[in-house]
């Protein structure tokens, strides 16, 4: 049974997204550890920078892809009735899409 990404693609997405998120989190810790913003204005200016904004957007895309693969695995394991799986996956996909749209809105508004 194949649902969305499966097998190798899902495994690669999960690992690639994990590596990117790890690198980004290390960067965040280093940035806020060594050069913390001294005001809300400087924090907004930092996050509004094109490189940081793009990297943050990719981070959340990686997070959503990672959650999709992980939660899909949980559903395949624990939701045993086959008829219940499509609705469960649909709820998951809709939730992630709403979260993604919300994150995109926040990031786009930070540009203004």
């Amino acid at each position, binding site marked *: 049974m194949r649902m969305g990404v*499966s*097998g190798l693609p*899902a*495994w*690669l997405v999960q690992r690639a997204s994990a590596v990117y998120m790890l690198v980004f989190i290390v960067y965040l810790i280093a940035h806020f550890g060594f050069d913390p913003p001294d005001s809300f204005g400087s924090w907004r200016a930092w996050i509004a920078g094109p490189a940081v904004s793009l990297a943050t957007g990719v981070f959340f895309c990686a997070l959503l892809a990672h959650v999709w693969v992980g939660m899909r*695995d949980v559903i395949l*394991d624990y939701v045993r009735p086959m008829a219940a799986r499509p609705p469960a996956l649909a709820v998951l996909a809709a939730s992630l899409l709403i979260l993604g749209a919300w994150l995109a809105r926040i990031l786009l508004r930070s540009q203004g």
Partner: protein
Amino acid sequence: MRLSIFRYDPERDAKPYMQAFEVTLQPTDRMLLDVILRIKDEQDDSLTLRKSCWEGVCGSDAMNINGRNGLACVTPLQGLNQPVILRPLPAMPVIRDLVVDMTQFFEQYHSIRPYVLNDEAAPQKERLQSPEDRAKLDGLYECILCACCTTQCPSFWWNPERFVGPAGLLQAYRFIIDSRDTARRERLDDLNDAYRLFRCRTIMNCTEVCPRGLAPSRAIEKIRLMLAGRS
């Protein structure tokens, strides 16, 4: 020594129960199987288990020992917490006491076609293999199919009908990597879906409990990397 052993005779018992035993150890008792057979000889001859070689080669006396799968014949008595709790291999249908139905395990094993596939013309004698290629099979061919690894794997517990399981995947890699086998592509294709290989979450219970010291999780990772490498 105190033991608590899973008992279930479907012809007599409404449901399984744990039965307590107390055994006086003799100087010749070294391994857990010695004590189980002493119980069977001296206290309750209805206690049912599989056993054969007594030296960790046949794999028939695999059971869950204090929560961890192992072979009773190579489990030293020294160091076992008491009471020693003995249960049949997890997630397998119980036939009686410590004997489980291995049908599903062997169906998954057979599904990977555990034999050399070669569509080239048969040579006059044997298909030769270099020492280097032969060395690639070390750590793979030694599997005795005791099912300790597969039945300790949560992914197999959830999807026994679809996930091949660590023992089957170790053997799959054994034939994928065999220089005499010409069906590598088909073997990899067969494993590339959401269940047969990729249900593995690298929990590594399999490698932890293997009584032969093999590493199914490493073989599984190598199959995944081969799939990734060819895509």
